[in-house]
Protein backbone atom coordinates (compact mmCIF):
# COMPACT_ATOMS: atom_id res chain seq x y z
CA UNK A 1 0.00 0.00 0.00
CA UNK A 2 2.88 2.35 0.83
CA UNK A 3 4.61 1.53 -2.41
CA UNK A 4 1.39 2.04 -4.36
CA UNK A 5 0.73 5.45 -2.77
CA UNK A 6 4.32 6.47 -3.42
CA UNK A 7 4.29 5.31 -7.04
CA UNK A 8 1.06 7.20 -7.69
CA UNK A 9 2.31 10.49 -6.30
CA UNK A 10 6.04 10.40 -6.92
CA UNK A 11 6.02 12.28 -10.25
CA UNK A 12 4.13 15.17 -8.71
CA UNK A 13 6.28 15.07 -5.58
CA UNK A 14 9.58 14.92 -7.45
CA UNK A 15 8.56 17.70 -9.85
CA UNK A 16 7.59 19.88 -6.91
CA UNK A 17 10.77 19.07 -4.98
CA UNK A 18 12.91 19.72 -8.03
CA UNK A 19 11.30 23.06 -8.84
CA UNK A 20 11.46 24.22 -5.22
CA UNK A 21 15.12 23.20 -5.04
CA UNK A 22 15.88 25.00 -8.29
CA UNK A 23 14.11 28.13 -7.10
CA UNK A 24 15.99 28.14 -3.79
CA UNK A 25 19.30 27.46 -5.52
CA UNK A 26 18.78 30.21 -8.09
CA UNK A 27 17.67 32.67 -5.40
CA UNK A 28 20.72 32.01 -3.22
CA UNK A 29 23.46 31.50 -5.80
CA UNK A 30 22.35 34.39 -8.04
CA UNK A 31 21.76 36.80 -5.19
CA UNK A 32 24.58 39.24 -6.04
CA UNK A 33 23.61 39.18 -9.72
CA UNK A 34 19.88 39.57 -9.11
CA UNK A 35 20.31 42.49 -6.75
CA UNK A 36 22.90 44.22 -8.92
CA UNK A 37 20.79 44.05 -12.07
CA UNK A 38 17.51 45.27 -10.63
CA UNK A 39 15.58 42.16 -11.51
CA UNK A 40 11.88 43.08 -11.23
CA UNK A 41 11.09 40.36 -8.72
CA UNK A 42 13.72 41.76 -6.34
CA UNK A 43 13.52 45.47 -7.06
CA UNK A 44 12.56 46.31 -3.49
CA UNK A 45 15.38 44.22 -2.12
CA UNK A 46 18.40 45.91 -3.63
CA UNK A 47 19.33 47.73 -0.48
CA UNK A 48 18.03 45.29 2.13
CA UNK A 49 19.93 42.71 4.11
CA UNK A 50 20.51 39.15 2.91
CA UNK A 51 17.93 37.80 5.35
CA UNK A 52 15.34 40.26 4.03
CA UNK A 53 16.17 39.18 0.49
CA UNK A 54 15.70 35.48 1.34
CA UNK A 55 12.55 36.17 3.30
CA UNK A 56 10.92 38.16 0.52
CA UNK A 57 11.91 35.82 -2.27
CA UNK A 58 11.48 32.45 -0.60
CA UNK A 59 9.44 32.47 2.57
CA UNK A 60 7.03 35.21 1.71
CA UNK A 61 7.38 35.21 -2.05
CA UNK A 62 7.46 33.01 -5.10
CA UNK A 63 8.67 29.82 -3.43
CA UNK A 64 5.82 29.89 -0.94
CA UNK A 65 3.31 30.49 -3.74
CA UNK A 66 4.74 27.64 -5.79
CA UNK A 67 4.71 25.33 -2.77
CA UNK A 68 1.08 26.14 -1.94
CA UNK A 69 -0.01 25.69 -5.53
CA UNK A 70 1.74 22.37 -6.09
CA UNK A 71 0.64 20.91 -2.75
CA UNK A 72 -2.91 21.07 -4.14
CA UNK A 73 -1.90 18.42 -6.66
CA UNK A 74 -0.30 16.18 -4.04
CA UNK A 75 -3.67 15.81 -2.34
CA UNK A 76 -5.47 14.64 -5.46
CA UNK A 77 -6.04 11.18 -6.88
CA UNK A 78 -7.74 8.89 -4.42
CA UNK A 79 -10.35 6.17 -4.91
CA UNK A 80 -12.64 8.35 -7.02
CA UNK A 81 -9.86 8.71 -9.57
CA UNK A 82 -9.16 4.98 -9.38
CA UNK A 83 -12.80 4.39 -10.25
CA UNK A 84 -12.39 6.56 -13.34
CA UNK A 85 -9.32 4.61 -14.42
CA UNK A 86 -10.99 1.28 -13.57
CA UNK A 87 -8.54 0.18 -10.89
CA UNK A 88 -10.78 0.83 -7.87
CA UNK A 89 -12.23 -2.69 -8.10
CA UNK A 90 -8.82 -4.26 -7.71
CA UNK A 91 -7.79 -1.95 -4.88
CA UNK A 92 -11.02 -2.45 -2.97
CA UNK A 93 -10.86 -6.22 -3.37
CA UNK A 94 -7.56 -6.34 -1.50
CA UNK A 95 -7.89 -7.59 2.06
CA UNK A 96 -7.44 -4.13 3.54
CA UNK A 97 -9.97 -1.67 4.82
CA UNK A 98 -10.78 1.53 2.97
CA UNK A 99 -9.44 3.35 5.99
CA UNK A 100 -6.05 1.75 5.41
CA UNK A 101 -6.11 2.51 1.69
CA UNK A 102 -6.93 6.15 2.29
CA UNK A 103 -4.81 6.35 5.45
CA UNK A 104 -1.74 5.18 3.56
CA UNK A 105 -2.28 7.82 0.89
CA UNK A 106 -2.59 10.48 3.56
CA UNK A 107 0.49 9.19 5.40
CA UNK A 108 2.61 9.16 2.24
CA UNK A 109 1.31 12.63 1.38
CA UNK A 110 2.22 13.88 4.85
CA UNK A 111 5.75 12.54 4.57
CA UNK A 112 6.09 14.14 1.14
CA UNK A 113 4.81 17.43 2.55
CA UNK A 114 7.37 17.29 5.34
CA UNK A 115 10.12 16.63 2.79
CA UNK A 116 8.98 19.52 0.58
CA UNK A 117 8.70 21.92 3.51
CA UNK A 118 12.26 20.97 4.49
CA UNK A 119 13.74 21.76 1.08
CA UNK A 120 14.41 25.48 1.77
CA UNK A 121 15.63 24.69 5.31
CA UNK A 122 18.21 22.29 3.92
CA UNK A 123 19.26 24.25 0.85
CA UNK A 124 19.27 27.88 1.93
CA UNK A 125 21.66 27.68 4.93
CA UNK A 126 23.85 25.18 3.05
CA UNK A 127 24.06 27.13 -0.21
CA UNK A 128 24.44 30.48 1.57
CA UNK A 129 27.74 29.23 2.96
CA UNK A 130 29.08 28.98 -0.62
CA UNK A 131 28.67 32.74 -0.98
CA UNK A 132 30.14 33.37 2.47
CA UNK A 133 26.69 34.39 3.61
CA UNK A 134 24.75 32.90 6.43
CA UNK A 135 21.13 32.20 6.99
CA UNK A 136 20.25 30.91 10.46
CA UNK A 137 19.04 27.31 10.46
CA UNK A 138 16.53 27.93 13.31
CA UNK A 139 14.74 30.56 11.20
CA UNK A 140 14.74 28.23 8.19
CA UNK A 141 13.31 25.44 10.35
CA UNK A 142 10.72 27.83 11.76
CA UNK A 143 9.36 28.38 8.26
CA UNK A 144 9.55 24.68 7.46
CA UNK A 145 7.22 24.00 10.39
CA UNK A 146 4.85 26.73 9.21
CA UNK A 147 4.94 25.45 5.64
CA UNK A 148 4.31 21.91 6.80
CA UNK A 149 1.22 22.73 8.85
CA UNK A 150 -0.05 25.19 6.25
CA UNK A 151 0.58 22.61 3.55
CA UNK A 152 -1.35 20.04 5.58
CA UNK A 153 -4.49 22.17 5.39
CA UNK A 154 -4.14 22.68 1.64
CA UNK A 155 -3.41 18.97 1.18
CA UNK A 156 -6.44 18.00 3.29
CA UNK A 157 -8.72 20.44 1.48
CA UNK A 158 -7.59 19.13 -1.88
CA UNK A 159 -8.02 15.54 -0.69
CA UNK A 160 -11.57 16.24 0.48
CA UNK A 161 -12.49 18.07 -2.71
CA UNK A 162 -11.18 15.27 -4.87
CA UNK A 163 -13.43 12.87 -2.92
CA UNK A 164 -16.57 14.95 -3.35
CA UNK A 165 -16.15 16.37 -6.86
CA UNK A 166 -16.27 14.34 -10.06
CA UNK A 167 -13.92 15.02 -12.95
CA UNK A 168 -10.17 14.98 -13.00
CA UNK A 169 -9.59 18.73 -12.97
CA UNK A 170 -12.61 19.96 -11.06
CA UNK A 171 -11.02 19.27 -7.67
CA UNK A 172 -7.80 21.24 -8.29
CA UNK A 173 -9.78 24.17 -9.70
CA UNK A 174 -12.15 24.08 -6.72
CA UNK A 175 -9.27 23.80 -4.26
CA UNK A 176 -7.34 26.66 -5.83
CA UNK A 177 -10.45 28.85 -5.79
CA UNK A 178 -11.12 27.88 -2.17
CA UNK A 179 -7.56 28.92 -1.33
CA UNK A 180 -8.08 32.28 -3.01
CA UNK A 181 -11.55 32.84 -1.56
CA UNK A 182 -10.40 32.10 1.96
CA UNK A 183 -8.00 35.06 1.76
CA UNK A 184 -10.98 37.33 1.16
CA UNK A 185 -12.96 35.78 3.99
CA UNK A 186 -9.94 36.10 6.27
CA UNK A 187 -9.65 39.79 5.36
CA UNK A 188 -13.30 40.43 6.27
CA UNK A 189 -13.45 42.89 9.20
CA UNK A 190 -15.04 40.63 11.84
CA UNK A 191 -12.43 37.93 11.13
CA UNK A 192 -9.40 40.04 10.27
CA UNK A 193 -8.08 40.03 13.83
CA UNK A 194 -7.77 36.24 13.95
CA UNK A 195 -5.12 36.01 11.20
CA UNK A 196 -6.94 33.27 9.34
CA UNK A 197 -5.13 33.90 6.06
CA UNK A 198 -3.14 30.72 5.60
CA UNK A 199 -0.65 32.33 3.23
CA UNK A 200 0.02 35.09 5.76
CA UNK A 201 0.54 32.54 8.52
CA UNK A 202 2.92 30.49 6.38
CA UNK A 203 4.92 33.59 5.52
CA UNK A 204 4.73 35.31 8.94
CA UNK A 205 3.26 38.30 7.09
CA UNK A 206 3.47 41.53 9.16
CA UNK A 207 4.92 39.69 12.17
CA UNK A 208 8.62 39.62 11.22
CA UNK A 209 10.82 41.91 13.31
CA UNK A 210 14.38 43.18 12.90
CA UNK A 211 17.06 42.22 15.38
CA UNK A 212 18.75 44.95 17.39
CA UNK A 213 21.53 45.46 14.85
CA UNK A 214 18.92 45.67 12.06
CA UNK A 215 20.72 42.95 10.10
CA UNK A 216 18.43 39.99 10.54
CA UNK A 217 14.68 39.59 10.04
CA UNK A 218 13.39 37.43 12.87
CA UNK A 219 10.08 35.61 13.07
CA UNK A 220 8.11 35.67 16.31
CA UNK A 221 8.31 32.58 18.54
CA UNK A 222 6.47 29.67 16.99
CA UNK A 223 2.90 29.45 18.26
CA UNK A 224 2.43 25.74 18.90
CA UNK A 225 -1.17 26.40 19.81
CA UNK A 226 -1.73 27.79 16.32
CA UNK A 227 0.05 24.78 14.83
CA UNK A 228 -2.20 22.47 16.87
CA UNK A 229 -5.30 24.29 15.64
CA UNK A 230 -4.05 24.02 12.05
CA UNK A 231 -3.31 20.31 12.47
CA UNK A 232 -6.75 19.74 13.99
CA UNK A 233 -8.41 21.57 11.10
CA UNK A 234 -6.45 19.47 8.59
CA UNK A 235 -7.44 16.31 10.48
CA UNK A 236 -11.06 17.43 10.45
CA UNK A 237 -10.97 17.81 6.67
CA UNK A 238 -9.20 14.47 6.27
CA UNK A 239 -11.63 12.64 8.52
CA UNK A 240 -14.50 14.13 6.52
CA UNK A 241 -12.83 12.82 3.35
CA UNK A 242 -12.39 9.36 4.89
CA UNK A 243 -15.98 9.35 6.09
CA UNK A 244 -17.25 10.20 2.61
CA UNK A 245 -14.95 7.57 1.04
CA UNK A 246 -16.24 4.91 3.42
CA UNK A 247 -19.82 5.64 2.41
CA UNK A 248 -19.17 5.90 -1.32
CA UNK A 249 -20.21 3.15 -3.73
CA UNK A 250 -17.58 2.00 -6.19
Amino acid at each position, binding site marked *: MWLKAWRESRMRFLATALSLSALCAVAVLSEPYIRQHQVPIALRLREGSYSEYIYNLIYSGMAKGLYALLVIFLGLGELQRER*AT*RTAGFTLSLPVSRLRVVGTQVAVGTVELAALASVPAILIPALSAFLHRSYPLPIALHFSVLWFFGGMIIFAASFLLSVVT*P*GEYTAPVACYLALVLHTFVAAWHPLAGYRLNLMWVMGEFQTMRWNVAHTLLLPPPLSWLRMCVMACFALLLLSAAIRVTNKQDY
Partner: protein
Amino acid sequence: MMDYVIETHDLSKQFGAFHAVSGLNLRVARNQVTGFLGRNGAGKSTTIKMLLGMTQPTSGSGLLLGYSITDPKQDLEARRQVAYCGEDKQLYAYMTVKQLIRFTASFYPDWRSEVAARLLEQFQLPPGRKVKALSKGMRTKLALLLALARRPSLLILDEPTEGLDPVSIEELLQTLSGLPADGTTVFFSSHQISEVERIADRVCIIDGGRLAVDLSLDEIRQDHRRITFSFSQQPPEHLFDMPEVRSIETNGRQVIVISSQGSDAVVERAKSADAVVVDVVPVNLRELFLGTVQDHK
Protein backbone atom coordinates in the same frame (compact mmCIF):
# COMPACT_ATOMS: atom_id res chain seq x y z
CA MET B 1 -12.50 -13.45 -57.43
CA MET B 2 -12.98 -13.11 -53.68
CA ASP B 3 -13.58 -9.60 -52.39
CA TYR B 4 -11.79 -8.77 -49.13
CA VAL B 5 -12.71 -6.06 -46.62
CA ILE B 6 -9.49 -6.53 -44.66
CA GLU B 7 -6.12 -7.33 -46.23
CA THR B 8 -2.80 -7.03 -44.46
CA HIS B 9 0.65 -7.69 -45.90
CA ASP B 10 3.50 -8.50 -43.52
CA LEU B 11 1.90 -6.25 -40.94
CA SER B 12 4.12 -5.89 -37.87
CA LYS B 13 4.05 -3.94 -34.66
CA GLN B 14 6.87 -3.76 -32.19
CA PHE B 15 6.73 -2.21 -28.71
CA GLY B 16 10.39 -1.86 -27.81
CA ALA B 17 11.84 -5.35 -28.03
CA PHE B 18 8.41 -6.99 -27.89
CA HIS B 19 6.90 -8.11 -31.20
CA ALA B 20 3.15 -7.79 -30.70
CA VAL B 21 2.37 -8.57 -34.35
CA SER B 22 4.93 -10.16 -36.71
CA GLY B 23 4.43 -10.24 -40.45
CA LEU B 24 0.69 -10.76 -40.31
CA ASN B 25 -0.99 -11.63 -43.62
CA LEU B 26 -4.67 -11.53 -42.88
CA ARG B 27 -7.58 -11.54 -45.32
CA VAL B 28 -11.21 -11.18 -44.34
CA ALA B 29 -13.82 -11.83 -47.01
CA ARG B 30 -16.82 -9.58 -47.56
CA ASN B 31 -20.28 -10.51 -46.33
CA GLN B 32 -19.10 -13.17 -43.97
CA VAL B 33 -18.76 -13.55 -40.23
CA THR B 34 -15.09 -14.06 -39.40
CA GLY B 35 -13.95 -15.04 -35.94
CA PHE B 36 -10.55 -13.84 -34.81
CA LEU B 37 -9.09 -16.15 -32.21
CA GLY B 38 -5.89 -16.14 -30.22
CA ARG B 39 -4.51 -16.40 -26.74
CA ASN B 40 -4.18 -13.37 -24.48
CA GLY B 41 -1.39 -11.20 -25.85
CA ALA B 42 -1.40 -12.98 -29.22
CA GLY B 43 -1.84 -9.64 -31.02
CA LYS B 44 -5.61 -9.52 -31.68
CA SER B 45 -6.29 -6.10 -30.15
CA THR B 46 -3.09 -4.61 -31.60
CA THR B 47 -4.13 -5.84 -35.06
CA ILE B 48 -7.58 -4.28 -34.67
CA LYS B 49 -6.04 -1.02 -33.44
CA MET B 50 -3.73 -0.93 -36.46
CA LEU B 51 -6.65 -1.56 -38.79
CA LEU B 52 -8.53 1.38 -37.28
CA GLY B 53 -5.54 3.75 -37.36
CA MET B 54 -5.24 3.96 -33.57
CA THR B 55 -1.76 2.46 -33.70
CA GLN B 56 0.74 2.85 -36.50
CA PRO B 57 2.35 -0.36 -37.80
CA THR B 58 6.12 -0.68 -37.42
CA SER B 59 6.24 -2.22 -40.90
CA GLY B 60 3.98 -3.76 -43.49
CA SER B 61 0.75 -2.48 -44.94
CA GLY B 62 -2.94 -3.11 -44.87
CA LEU B 63 -6.20 -2.29 -46.55
CA LEU B 64 -9.48 -1.73 -44.79
CA LEU B 65 -12.39 -1.70 -47.24
CA GLY B 66 -9.79 -0.93 -49.88
CA TYR B 67 -8.35 2.05 -48.02
CA SER B 68 -4.76 2.06 -46.81
CA ILE B 69 -4.55 1.82 -43.02
CA THR B 70 -1.22 3.69 -42.94
CA ASP B 71 -2.59 6.77 -44.69
CA PRO B 72 -4.55 8.88 -42.17
CA LYS B 73 -6.83 10.34 -44.86
CA GLN B 74 -7.71 6.96 -46.34
CA ASP B 75 -8.10 5.44 -42.91
CA LEU B 76 -10.57 8.19 -42.07
CA GLU B 77 -12.61 7.28 -45.17
CA ALA B 78 -12.59 3.66 -44.07
CA ARG B 79 -13.81 4.59 -40.58
CA ARG B 80 -16.90 6.20 -42.09
CA GLN B 81 -18.01 2.70 -43.11
CA VAL B 82 -16.69 0.77 -40.13
CA ALA B 83 -18.30 0.34 -36.74
CA TYR B 84 -16.08 -0.67 -33.83
CA CYS B 85 -16.98 -1.98 -30.43
CA GLY B 86 -13.89 -2.00 -28.23
CA GLU B 87 -12.68 -4.53 -25.74
CA ASP B 88 -13.44 -2.64 -22.52
CA LYS B 89 -16.60 -0.89 -23.76
CA GLN B 90 -15.71 2.31 -21.95
CA LEU B 91 -17.79 5.22 -23.14
CA TYR B 92 -17.92 8.87 -22.12
CA ALA B 93 -18.91 8.64 -18.46
CA TYR B 94 -20.14 12.23 -18.32
CA MET B 95 -22.75 11.79 -21.07
CA THR B 96 -26.23 10.33 -20.70
CA VAL B 97 -27.30 7.41 -22.91
CA LYS B 98 -29.39 9.79 -25.02
CA GLN B 99 -26.57 12.33 -25.34
CA LEU B 100 -24.13 9.63 -26.42
CA ILE B 101 -26.52 8.30 -29.05
CA ARG B 102 -27.08 11.82 -30.37
CA PHE B 103 -23.33 12.47 -30.31
CA THR B 104 -22.43 9.30 -32.22
CA ALA B 105 -25.33 9.64 -34.67
CA SER B 106 -24.06 13.06 -35.77
CA PHE B 107 -21.01 11.47 -37.44
CA TYR B 108 -22.94 9.06 -39.64
CA PRO B 109 -25.29 10.38 -42.33
CA ASP B 110 -26.93 6.98 -42.75
CA TRP B 111 -27.64 6.54 -39.05
CA ARG B 112 -30.78 4.46 -38.56
CA SER B 113 -32.76 6.13 -35.81
CA GLU B 114 -35.44 3.44 -35.92
CA VAL B 115 -32.80 0.74 -35.31
CA ALA B 116 -31.35 2.78 -32.44
CA ALA B 117 -34.83 3.21 -30.94
CA ARG B 118 -35.59 -0.49 -31.33
CA LEU B 119 -32.31 -1.57 -29.73
CA LEU B 120 -32.73 1.00 -26.95
CA GLU B 121 -36.02 -0.66 -26.09
CA GLN B 122 -34.76 -4.20 -26.66
CA PHE B 123 -31.68 -3.65 -24.48
CA GLN B 124 -33.78 -1.78 -21.88
CA LEU B 125 -31.32 1.09 -21.72
CA PRO B 126 -32.51 4.13 -19.73
CA PRO B 127 -32.01 7.17 -22.04
CA GLY B 128 -31.60 9.68 -19.22
CA ARG B 129 -29.03 7.76 -17.22
CA LYS B 130 -25.39 8.81 -17.24
CA VAL B 131 -23.02 6.27 -18.79
CA LYS B 132 -20.98 6.13 -15.58
CA ALA B 133 -24.06 4.79 -13.78
CA LEU B 134 -24.54 1.90 -16.22
CA SER B 135 -23.48 -1.66 -15.42
CA LYS B 136 -20.83 -3.29 -17.57
CA GLY B 137 -23.47 -5.34 -19.37
CA MET B 138 -25.53 -2.24 -20.11
CA ARG B 139 -22.43 -0.43 -21.34
CA THR B 140 -21.73 -3.34 -23.66
CA LYS B 141 -25.30 -3.17 -24.98
CA LEU B 142 -24.98 0.58 -25.50
CA ALA B 143 -21.70 0.11 -27.38
CA LEU B 144 -23.41 -2.49 -29.58
CA LEU B 145 -26.36 -0.19 -30.19
CA LEU B 146 -23.97 2.55 -31.33
CA ALA B 147 -22.21 0.08 -33.62
CA LEU B 148 -25.31 -1.52 -35.12
CA ALA B 149 -27.43 1.57 -35.72
CA ARG B 150 -25.13 3.05 -38.33
CA ARG B 151 -25.40 0.53 -41.19
CA PRO B 152 -21.67 -0.20 -41.38
CA SER B 153 -20.02 -2.10 -44.23
CA LEU B 154 -17.77 -3.71 -41.65
CA LEU B 155 -18.41 -4.32 -37.99
CA ILE B 156 -15.33 -4.95 -35.87
CA LEU B 157 -15.98 -6.27 -32.40
CA ASP B 158 -13.43 -6.99 -29.71
CA GLU B 159 -14.84 -9.52 -27.23
CA PRO B 160 -18.45 -8.48 -27.89
CA THR B 161 -20.18 -10.87 -25.50
CA GLU B 162 -18.04 -10.08 -22.49
CA GLY B 163 -20.20 -8.79 -19.68
CA LEU B 164 -23.49 -9.86 -21.25
CA ASP B 165 -26.02 -12.19 -19.65
CA PRO B 166 -26.92 -15.45 -21.51
CA VAL B 167 -30.16 -14.04 -22.94
CA SER B 168 -28.35 -10.99 -24.33
CA ILE B 169 -25.57 -13.19 -25.70
CA GLU B 170 -28.14 -15.26 -27.55
CA GLU B 171 -29.80 -12.14 -28.97
CA LEU B 172 -26.46 -10.70 -30.00
CA LEU B 173 -25.29 -13.86 -31.73
CA GLN B 174 -28.53 -14.04 -33.68
CA THR B 175 -28.16 -10.40 -34.68
CA LEU B 176 -24.55 -10.84 -35.76
CA SER B 177 -25.21 -13.96 -37.82
CA GLY B 178 -27.94 -12.10 -39.72
CA LEU B 179 -25.83 -9.02 -40.55
CA PRO B 180 -24.03 -10.35 -43.67
CA ALA B 181 -27.42 -10.69 -45.35
CA ASP B 182 -27.84 -6.91 -44.92
CA GLY B 183 -24.41 -6.25 -46.42
CA THR B 184 -22.42 -5.95 -43.19
CA THR B 185 -19.26 -7.99 -42.78
CA VAL B 186 -18.56 -9.02 -39.21
CA PHE B 187 -15.03 -9.44 -37.87
CA PHE B 188 -14.92 -10.26 -34.20
CA SER B 189 -12.39 -11.44 -31.67
CA SER B 190 -13.50 -13.72 -28.90
CA HIS B 191 -12.28 -16.18 -26.33
CA GLN B 192 -15.61 -18.01 -26.42
CA ILE B 193 -14.86 -20.70 -29.00
CA SER B 194 -18.37 -22.12 -28.86
CA GLU B 195 -19.77 -18.71 -29.89
CA VAL B 196 -17.33 -18.44 -32.77
CA GLU B 197 -18.17 -21.97 -33.88
CA ARG B 198 -21.88 -21.12 -33.81
CA ILE B 199 -21.90 -18.03 -35.99
CA ALA B 200 -18.59 -17.73 -37.85
CA ASP B 201 -18.23 -18.65 -41.50
CA ARG B 202 -14.48 -18.44 -41.25
CA VAL B 203 -11.90 -18.50 -38.48
CA CYS B 204 -8.51 -16.82 -38.25
CA ILE B 205 -6.23 -17.89 -35.42
CA ILE B 206 -3.35 -15.63 -34.50
CA ASP B 207 -0.50 -16.93 -32.37
CA GLY B 208 2.62 -15.04 -31.35
CA GLY B 209 1.62 -12.20 -33.66
CA ARG B 210 1.45 -14.47 -36.72
CA LEU B 211 -1.50 -15.91 -38.57
CA ALA B 212 -1.55 -19.61 -37.71
CA VAL B 213 -4.92 -20.67 -39.16
CA ASP B 214 -7.21 -19.17 -41.78
CA LEU B 215 -9.97 -21.63 -42.61
CA SER B 216 -13.68 -21.78 -43.11
CA LEU B 217 -15.68 -23.79 -40.58
CA ASP B 218 -16.63 -26.15 -43.42
CA GLU B 219 -12.95 -26.74 -44.25
CA ILE B 220 -12.27 -27.56 -40.61
CA ARG B 221 -15.15 -30.02 -40.46
CA GLN B 222 -14.39 -31.68 -43.82
CA ASP B 223 -10.59 -31.80 -43.95
CA HIS B 224 -9.36 -31.94 -40.38
CA ARG B 225 -9.22 -35.11 -38.34
CA ARG B 226 -8.12 -36.06 -34.91
CA ILE B 227 -6.34 -39.43 -35.20
CA THR B 228 -5.35 -41.45 -32.15
CA PHE B 229 -2.54 -43.98 -32.63
CA SER B 230 -1.24 -46.63 -30.30
CA PHE B 231 2.33 -47.84 -30.68
CA SER B 232 3.79 -51.06 -29.31
CA GLN B 233 7.05 -49.26 -28.66
CA GLN B 234 8.26 -45.64 -28.55
CA PRO B 235 7.42 -44.10 -31.97
CA PRO B 236 10.29 -42.71 -34.09
CA GLU B 237 11.04 -39.06 -33.33
CA HIS B 238 10.33 -37.51 -36.73
CA LEU B 239 7.64 -39.92 -37.86
CA PHE B 240 4.99 -37.23 -38.29
CA ASP B 241 7.10 -34.55 -39.96
CA MET B 242 4.53 -34.09 -42.70
CA PRO B 243 2.79 -31.02 -44.15
CA GLU B 244 -0.60 -32.55 -43.33
CA VAL B 245 0.12 -32.72 -39.62
CA ARG B 246 -1.00 -29.64 -37.74
CA SER B 247 -0.23 -30.75 -34.19
CA ILE B 248 0.94 -33.78 -32.23
CA GLU B 249 0.25 -34.70 -28.63
CA THR B 250 2.26 -37.62 -27.22
CA ASN B 251 1.12 -39.44 -24.12
CA GLY B 252 3.48 -42.39 -23.54
CA ARG B 253 2.93 -44.76 -26.43
CA GLN B 254 -0.28 -43.10 -27.45
CA VAL B 255 -0.05 -40.28 -30.00
CA ILE B 256 -2.85 -37.92 -30.98
CA VAL B 257 -2.38 -36.18 -34.32
CA ILE B 258 -4.48 -33.41 -35.77
CA SER B 259 -4.23 -33.57 -39.50
CA SER B 260 -5.39 -31.27 -42.22
CA GLN B 261 -6.23 -32.21 -45.83
CA GLY B 262 -7.50 -35.68 -44.94
CA SER B 263 -6.06 -38.39 -42.80
CA ASP B 264 -5.02 -41.12 -45.25
CA ALA B 265 -1.37 -40.15 -45.69
CA VAL B 266 -0.89 -39.75 -41.95
CA VAL B 267 -2.50 -43.11 -41.20
CA GLU B 268 -0.30 -44.81 -43.84
CA ARG B 269 2.83 -43.27 -42.32
CA ALA B 270 1.84 -44.40 -38.81
CA LYS B 271 1.04 -47.92 -39.96
CA SER B 272 4.51 -48.15 -41.50
CA ALA B 273 5.83 -47.77 -37.97
CA ASP B 274 3.58 -50.53 -36.61
CA ALA B 275 1.01 -48.18 -35.17
CA VAL B 276 -2.53 -49.23 -34.44
CA VAL B 277 -5.17 -46.69 -35.36
CA VAL B 278 -7.45 -46.33 -32.40
CA ASP B 279 -9.71 -43.53 -33.51
CA VAL B 280 -10.27 -41.09 -36.44
CA VAL B 281 -12.83 -38.36 -35.72
CA PRO B 282 -13.62 -34.92 -37.13
CA VAL B 283 -11.96 -32.04 -35.33
CA ASN B 284 -13.92 -29.32 -33.57
CA LEU B 285 -12.75 -25.71 -33.35
CA ARG B 286 -11.66 -26.04 -29.73
CA GLU B 287 -9.31 -28.92 -30.56
CA LEU B 288 -7.93 -27.09 -33.58
CA PHE B 289 -7.41 -23.93 -31.53
CA LEU B 290 -5.69 -25.73 -28.66
CA GLY B 291 -3.61 -27.79 -31.08
CA THR B 292 -2.52 -24.61 -32.84
CA VAL B 293 -1.71 -22.33 -29.94
CA GLN B 294 -0.28 -24.85 -27.48
CA ASP B 295 2.58 -25.62 -29.84
CA HIS B 296 2.50 -29.35 -29.39
CA LYS B 297 4.01 -30.00 -32.73
